Structure formats: C-alpha cells, structure tokens
C-alpha cells in the first residue's frame, strides 16, 4: 500500500519538472473517456479499479446514471463477462482494469476474444508517462504483452489523443472480423485537462480494410458450382452470427435445399430443429456431418475457419470436394483448406447475391443419408445418453429436461470439457446468439463470468450456465459479483468428480493412467449459500425436472449441482490425428 500512496502524493503535488502536471481548465482525459463511452452507446462496463486507473473511476462517479459499472471479483471475470455480453447482445463489450496485475489478468480473456472474434474494448490504466520503463510500481509493458492477443492496441500518453483513439478502438473492435482492442492510458493523460472538441465516431482508417470487395466473378463461379452439384453440403460458423446474416443465410440454404451443419460457434444461427440443419461438426460433433464431409461434391463453408477440431487430419479432409469459402477475413482463405472458389466479403452481402443466382432445389436422397447416419447415432449413442437405462445420471438427460423446460428459448453458456460437448450436442435453440462457449481457446473458467455478462446482454431470456466441477473452481469468485449486482444467472454444475474430459483421454489414449484428474470439490451449495445464492444438490433421476424447474422459477440466481456418472464418455469422437470420416461411436471402435 505504501508505494500506492506515494504515487498518490505525487498527483497532489506534482513536481515542476514532470510532464504530468495537469494544465488548468478544459476537460480531463478521464472525462473524455466517459464521453466517448456514452457516445458509443455503451451501457454496461465490467471492471475493477486500482491506482493507475483511479482518475477514470473518479470520472465514472459522475456518470453513474449513464454508464452501469459491474464490479467483478477478478479482471479475468471482467473480460469474460464482457465477452458474454458482447456475444449475446451483438454489441461491443467494455472492460476497465488497472495497470500491472489488473492488465495481465486480462490476457486469457483477450486471447479467448481474439480467437473467437469477439468485440471487446479494454481500457487499462498505466503508470505516469514519465515513469514508463522505470519499473515503476505496477508497471508492466501491457502493449507488448497484449500485442499477439489483440486486433489492435495503443498506448495513450496525452489526453488530446483520447477521443480519436477511443473512436478508432470501437470501430476496429466491431468492424470487419471483430476482435479485442486494448487502450492503455497513462495516469497523467487521464488527469490532463485539455481543450475538448467533442467526440466523433470513426468510420474510416486508411490502412484498414474491414471488408474485402465482393467479386462478381467468384459469386458467379460459386453459383455455377452449386447449381451443378449433386451432393452439396453447407458448413457454417460464427461468421453468420457476427455478420448478423442469419436471415440471409436461412434464405440461402432454403432456396438451395442444401443440408447445413454448424460449428460449435455457428450453433444457434439457425434454429436447431431446422429441417435442413444436420447437426454439429467437429471432434464431438454429429456422425453424419463428419462422415459426409468426405462424400459431398461441393462444400460451401460460410463464416468459418476450418479449425483443426473441425477438420481432423487435413490431408484426409474433404479431398474429393470442390470448396467454396465465404469469409470476411482474406487471411482465412486458403489458410487451412484450399478454396476452389474464394468468396471474399461480408456474408450478409455475399449470401443474397449468391441466393439470387442459384436454382431452387431439393436433394431428398442426399438429405436422407444424413438422416440415416443420425438414426445410427441415435441408436448407438443418443438414446442411452438422453434416456439412460442405468441408475447413474448422464449429462445428456439433464440437457434434455432443460430443453423441455426452456422451450429452446434460453441462453446457454458452457464452460470447457465433457459437459460443454454434451450441452452443445443436445441443447436446442430457436434464437440466434444463444450458444455462448469458449470455442477456439477452450478456456476453463469462462462460463460463470460469461454468463453474468450474458445476463446483462439480454435480460429478457433466462441465462443458464452449464459448468463442470473443475471449471467452476477456476472462477467461482464471481459468485461475489452475482451476490452484489444480482444478475439472473442459473448455474448448473454437472459434477462427475473428475476433470472429465482429460480423464476420458487418459482412459482412451493413455491406458487408463489417471494422472491428476481426480478433483475434490467443496460443498458447492454451501459455497453458494455463503454468497447468498440459493441452491440444491441432487443425484436422483426423479429430482432432475423439479430441481430444474425450481431453479428456473426462482427469482434471482440459483445454483444447482447435479451428480452425474463419474466415468461417462462423450461420443461420437474423431480421435486426434484421424480424418473426419474415421469418427467412432464408441470406445470399442477405437
């Protein structure tokens, strides 16, 4: 604390030689930050104060009515909450954090937002400009630490830059392929008074092209390929949701009559019960879409990036198919899978152009192939998972009951592990922006804070967080945030007494050598109670429905722990290093 007071003394009596003397009159840099946020229609900020960001928090004191600030319990919680907020609302998430440890605590969330293309603007405090590079108290090189995990970052050392830089920050975070932005503001710039000329939104940066130009030639070539196809297959990712192109996408597949499968992040862009929806791609995705990827003749990828968890072994991926790749990010074209026809552009603009040129068609036999595979998966995996014959509870049956109660209307936020795969396999959605999960980074500890953000992002729908007993213990401090600010978060802990996903791999690929996956947990219900959150723990089948109902009906947050089978495995599975058509339905097939 001593060092912090010292810095504080300096503000009050700045020494003459220092550049940090705030000139008299005008508007302070911190106030300019507030004005920028108001102008950008920011409503909710997730943050945590500290020495280097105190002037901003001081300014926030006067903006309490225009800007809602949620005090989290850890900066990682702040950024995950901002991510959840952004993904549910389609707006930009905003985070405040102090210098040094406050800023470094953001790094996991920045990496997560970067790989999952989530628009977030993080404002971090920084030591006085004259102290930069002196190893000052709570000084870290935030710009260089965050460079690989931000779309853009910038350090402000002079208040006059604030309006322009923040305008750029919001523009860059939201436009094109969205991503996280860090603006590091030195304390002197926050304090500095300057002649404020108002805030002007940014709409153009000469060196930055958010959207590539759409080329007619490629649209025509793509349409030709689609019109000539016998077994076309659409795979789509979050690009459809980020581009707000759900309607355009639905029109496209409905006119084309092409079966469509989603990536984990593309999920909910169309209702899960859409007749052309054939399920999820990827390592634990559905059987048909994985196998038939290697049988289609034209593969149409929309707003997805061929992640290795989706493609499996690349040299065994869709080799027979002509690939049409629609993406807003030119760097994604040909990155992993070579495109026969690259359709650069925002899919909200390219899809209607394509829809216009394609013929209205149906592929009943081809679609039937997906249904046949689904039947096989149903018989061998799904039936037992959703309606188990044994006594131990499965994660799948919990999701089934939840679907029935929420009528596919809930926002489901998942953490990382077996429960995530099961939830994404079986959850039903009828609204877009409903499946919130850490896809690219696989960040355990994501769900609880992201669910808090999601609850602010769309308070009109129930938010249900589904979390493992391991992941919950990574960020459970955010129960304190729930206690204080009372967002409505339904927390389900699917407790298998193991770090389940790692245990599954140890069982299947490391000869049952269970190495540090046996995790003990506190009494979660007691923990929640300590935070003033009601809860219950159940382990019997007949309790599932009433307990879920009690949770959903409860006015306010609620924690429900459900004890599930300890050694259940998630199937189907594309084992690592294998091709997508080598997907297996059970342990025995490995």
């Amino acid at each position, binding site marked *: 604390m001593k060092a912090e007071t010292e810095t504080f003394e300096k503000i009050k009596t700045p020494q003459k030689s220092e550049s940090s003397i705030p000139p008299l009159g005008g508007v302070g840099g911190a106030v300019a930050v507030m004005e920028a946020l108001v102008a950008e229609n920011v409503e909710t900020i997730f943050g945590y104060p500290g020495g280097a960001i105190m002037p901003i928090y001081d300014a926030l004191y006067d903006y309490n009515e225009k800007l809602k600030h949620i005090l989290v319990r850890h900066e990682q919680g702040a950024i995950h909450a901002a991510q959840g907020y952004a993904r549910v609302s389609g707006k930009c998430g905003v985070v405040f954090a102090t210098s040094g440890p406050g800023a470094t605590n953001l790094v996991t969330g920045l990496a997560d937002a970067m790989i999952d293309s989530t628009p977030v603007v993080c404002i971090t405090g920084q030591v006085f400009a004259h102290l930069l590079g002196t190893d000052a108290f709570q000084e870290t090189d935030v710009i260089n630490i965050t*460079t690989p995990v931000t779309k853009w970052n910038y*350090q402000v050392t002079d208040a006059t830059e604030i309006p322009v830089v923040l305008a750029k920050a919001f523009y860059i975070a939201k436009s094109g392929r969205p991503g996280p932005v860090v603006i590091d503001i030195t304390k002197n710039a926050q304090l500095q008074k300057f002649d404020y000329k108002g805030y002007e939104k940014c709409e153009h940066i000469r060196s*930055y092209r958010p959207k590539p*130009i759409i080329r007619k*030639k490629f649209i025509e070539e793509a349409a030709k390929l689609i019109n000539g196809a016998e077994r076309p297959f659409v795979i789509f990712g979050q690009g459809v949701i980020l581009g707000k192109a759900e309607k355009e996408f639905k029109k496209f597949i409905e006119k084309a009559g092409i079966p469509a499968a989603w990536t984990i992040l593309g999920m909910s862009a169309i209702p899960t019960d859409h007749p052309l929806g054939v399920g999820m791609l990827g390592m634990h995705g559905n059987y048909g879409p994985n196998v038939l990827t290697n049988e289609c003749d034209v593969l149409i990828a929309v707003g997805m990036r061929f992640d290795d968890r989706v493609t499996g072994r690349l040299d065994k991926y869709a080799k027979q198919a002509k690939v049409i790749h629609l993406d807003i*990010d*030119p760097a994604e074209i040909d990155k992993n899978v070579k495109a026969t026809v*690259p359709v*650069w552009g925002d899919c909200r*603009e390219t899809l209607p152009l394509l829809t216009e040129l394609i013929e209205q068609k149906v592929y009943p036999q081809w679609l039937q192939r997906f249904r046949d595979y689904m039947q096989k998966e149903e018989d061998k995996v799904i039936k037992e998972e959703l309606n188990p014959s044994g006594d131990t509870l499965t994660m799948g049956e919990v999701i089934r009951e939840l679907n029935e109660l929420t009528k596919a209307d809930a926002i489901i936020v998942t953490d990382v592990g077996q429960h995530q795969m099961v939830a994404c396999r079986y959850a039903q959605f009828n609204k877009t922006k409903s499946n919130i999960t850490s896809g690219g980074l696989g960040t355990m500890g994501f769900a609880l804070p992201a669910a808090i953000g999601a609850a602010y992002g769309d308070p009109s729908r129930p938010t249900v967080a589904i979390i493992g007993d391991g992941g919950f213990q990574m960020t459970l401090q955010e129960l304190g945030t729930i206690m204080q600010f009372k967002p409505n978060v339904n927390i389900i802990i699917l407790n298998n007494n193991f770090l389940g996903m790692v245990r599954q791999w140890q069982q299947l690929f490391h000869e049952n050598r269970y190495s540090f996956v046996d995790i003990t947990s506190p009494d979660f219900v007691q923990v929640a109670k300590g935070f003033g959150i009601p809860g219950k723990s159940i382990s019997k089948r007949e309790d599932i429905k009433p307990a879920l109902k009690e949770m959903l009906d409860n006015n306010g947050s609620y924690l429900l722990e459900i004890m599930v089978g300890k050694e259940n495995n998630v199937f189907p599975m594309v084992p690592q290093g294998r091709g997508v058509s080598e997907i297996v339905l059970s342990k025995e097939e490995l």
Partner: protein
Amino acid sequence: MLKQEYTITVYTENQIGLLNRIAIIFSRRKINIESLNTSPSEVDSVHRFTIVINETEDVVKKLCRQIEKQVEVLKAYYNTQEEIVWQELALYKVPTDVIAEEVKVERLLREHGAKAVVIRKDYTVFEVAGHREETDNLIKVLEPYGLIEFVRSARVAIIKNSDGFHEKLKEFEHREPGEDAIENEYLAKKDEVFSM
C-alpha cells in the same frame, strides 16, 4: 514446394509497436527473419519494411495475408530474387598501414568496388554496396590483412515491376476502396467487382 529466398515489401503507417506486431507474425511460426529494414518510402508519411526470409511460396503468401491483416499495414508484397533490384551495404575497418604497405590490398579493394569512407592514421573504413556474395567475398579477402571490424546492413530492395505507392495510396484514402486497395492474386477488372 521448394523453399527459396523471398523479399517481402510492406507499406505501413509510421506507428510505434508495428515492428513488433510484424515481427511476431514470423516468430510465432518459428520462421527466421534473415534481414529486416525499415525506412521511409516514396510516399511522405508511409513507411516501408523490407523483410527477407527463406520459405515456400505458400507460406510466404499466408504470411503476407497475416501482415496485411494488421490495422496499420497498407499493403504487403512478396517477390523472388529475380523480381527485385536489391543491395546491402557493408563496412570494413582495416589497419591503414597494411593498405599503405601492401600494394596488393589496394588492388583487391578496387577490384571489389570498395570506397574509402574514413581514412585515419590507424585505420581505414571501406564501404561496399552489393549482393550478399559480393560483400561476403571481401571479408575473406581482407581477413588475412587484419580486418578489424565488419558490419553489413539489412537488405533494401526495389520491386522491378512496380509503379510505386503514390497511386495506390489514393485508393486507400477513399472511403469506398477501389479494387487495388484489397489487391489479391485474382486482381479482377472493374466490371467484375460489385460496388455495394
């Protein structure tokens, strides 16, 4: 695909931190940068990076796309040796008495096109501008005569088939970009581009 030497030319804004942003695109993929030079360009306010790496064309193309993705990068080009005119500058410090005494040395220096930059009683500094082999050769020649110091600059390169960046920049400054602004290998004609 075969690895070969590529020279990447990047036009950028002049921004602190951009060097790091560009450098980590290579280091993240464990790609060694053979040479890197930053300088002004033919356009006022636009900076120019010249980066040399040894890679396959496929990798270089992907790297250029990642570079262009950076907010402050205007454009990235890659070229093979044959497509550029390039030079590196080398400086050699040699004891002056050796040169004065050994007639052979003077002849050798002249043969290698070396120019004296500084002549002092104790040492002389020569410069040679040229290709890698040329500057390398002179090291070997001078070593027996007591080469005191040697240093070589990064590569600078001019793209033979380029009209410079003046015209391109105008396109970038438009709010509605022209086709060149997002150039790619399929550069299409105007009527093939939708203007929305």
